[in-house]
């Protein structure tokens, strides 16, 4: 049963570090919002109507058109899952946290490889998603587009000739598309250029998200960049624009990494080495500390300072050490302290195993 595997396995195709530019671009994601023409948007649905939406999508997902264009899909109502299992789907980025609220009315559609998923009755009736490793926005859009064509063979979408696809939140109207890349930018953070670079990007109709500590660097040095505009641009143009900005950023990040390796060689080696040492030997580790150290270690792997650990393991560890995964792996509830102990143990074990191969 594919769902069991999804829940037992932290690994997902998007984490395997295989795509282009995978040293900096962790993943590419395309989401599109669709609504059914005959029913109110999810926040106004009665429980029966919510069930109607799920049934309609289930029928469409089983249709020959969808099978042919997107493959075999499984529909799972959220109330068929335990709370921990639901949280795991969030931690693997297959659904958004919004799908956990009022979950009796919601469902998720998954393809076995977890590349394609559909959230049902989130803010819109359908949110189609494709998540791929590395910089593969075009590929992600093509997969979502094909799945969308397959679903539309059966479903009547709310569509307006002038405004395009109609969405619950008017800021998504038009293409209903949100394309994003998740970037690891430790170089730009270390050379202190990150704020300027991100501020410049945000003037281009793109949104940047990151987590900052006051006066310190972003935890994990991870940033998500996505399009803000959904009206007046074709999907292909939105994707092309985001790719070109991402390439610009890749150039700057690589330049920063080069400058650091050239001019701050010892400091960099020291930082990476310390992260490696602590990850390998610590017995208690909070999630912030893990994120910070895993970021440093990933940079060291990318710069070939550390050679016997694959970068994909870092992405996997980041997901594997999230709270719900730890609870799932432990098979019982964990107190915060137990969690930190368990997290450290898991990291030690995984790193040791990688070094033996």
């Amino acid at each position, binding site marked *: 049963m594919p769902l069991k595997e999804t829940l037992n396995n932290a690994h997902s195709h998007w984490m395997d570090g295989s795509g282009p530019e995978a040293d900096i671009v962790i993943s590419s994601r395309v989401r599109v919002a669709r609504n059914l023409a005959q*029913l*109110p*948007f999810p*926040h*106004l649905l009665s429980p029966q109507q919510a069930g109607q939406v799920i049934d309609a999508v289930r029928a469409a997902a089983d249709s020959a058109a969808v099978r042919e264009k997107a493959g075999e899909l499984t529909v799972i109502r959220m109330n068929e899952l335990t709370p921990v299992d639901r949280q795991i789907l*969030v*931690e693997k*980025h297959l659904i*958004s*946290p919004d799908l956990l609220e009022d979950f009796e009315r919601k469902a998720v559609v998954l393809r076995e490889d977890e590349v394609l998923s559909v959230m049902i009755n989130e*803010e819109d009736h359908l949110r189609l998603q494709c998540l791929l490793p590395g910089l593969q926005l075009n590929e992600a859009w093509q997969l979502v587009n094909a799945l969308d064509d397959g679903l*539309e*063979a059966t479903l*009547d*979408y*709310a*569509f*307006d*000739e*002038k*405004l*395009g696809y*109609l969405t*619950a*939140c*008017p*800021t998504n*109207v*038009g*293409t209903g598309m949100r394309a994003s890349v*998740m970037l690891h930018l430790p170089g730009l953070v270390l050379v202190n250029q990150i704020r300027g670079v*991100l*501020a410049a990007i*945000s*003037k281009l109709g793109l*949104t*940047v*998200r*990151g*987590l*900052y*500590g*006051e006066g310190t660097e972003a935890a994990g040095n*991870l940033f*998500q960049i996505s399009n*803000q*505009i*959904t*009206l*007046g*641009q*074709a*999907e292909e143009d*939105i994707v092309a624009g985001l790719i070109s900005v991402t390439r610009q950023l890749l150039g700057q990040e690589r330049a920063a990494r080069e400058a650091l390796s050239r001019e701050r060689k010892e400091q960099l080696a020291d930082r990476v080495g310390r992260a490696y040492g602590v990850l390998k030997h610590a017995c208690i580790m*909070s*999630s*912030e500390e893990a994120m910070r150290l895993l970021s440093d270690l990933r940079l060291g792997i990318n710069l070939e300072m550390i050679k016997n650990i694959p970068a994909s393991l870092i992405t996997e560890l*980041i997901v594997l050490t*999230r*709270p719900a995964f730890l609870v799932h792996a432990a098979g019982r509830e964990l107190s915060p302290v137990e969690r930190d102990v368990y997290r450290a143990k898991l990291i030690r074990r995984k790193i040791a195993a990688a070094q033996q191969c």
Partner: protein
Amino acid sequence: MMECERCHQRPAVIFLTEITNGQKRTMRLCEQCAREIQAESFGFLPQIDLHNFLAGLLHNEFNPPASGPAEPPAAGARCEACGLTEAQFARQGLLGCGECYKYFGERLEPVFRRIHGTTCHAGKVPERTGGRVKVVNRIERLKLEMKEAINREEFERAAQLRDSIRELEKELQQEDQAHASERNSE
């Protein structure tokens, strides 16, 4: 001392920042709340209060500032399909159904213009239910191509494109006539 915006109890020490269109929005959090948010959504951080932000925009749109002639509230400002009222919409930032766009559309246009710079969709059209939009878009694309062909002095190509455009336009006309006679017979 600044208090945490989430729990309103502990002091805020972490700033969660989102930058859009050069505008920075910051959420001030205590360490514990930041940790919780981070644990919930590693990497893919939630959009900070996008609905509130939008509701703010809509609020301004629907409640023009006191200066200038005060517009009386539009009568019957509710969607007849789902019953959503203008007040509900301005509060939540969410529309109730596809029909709402007909009832609130005009008031939304300035908002679209501000966010997207336009009010017209230029992307995908559904294959089965898209109808004539698909053909119209196709014609627009061919016209552009024809212009480019003429600029490059590829006149043979331009003539081919012109013929395709004429054919599609004829198709549209026939469709419109069919629709019109359908309506007459009703």
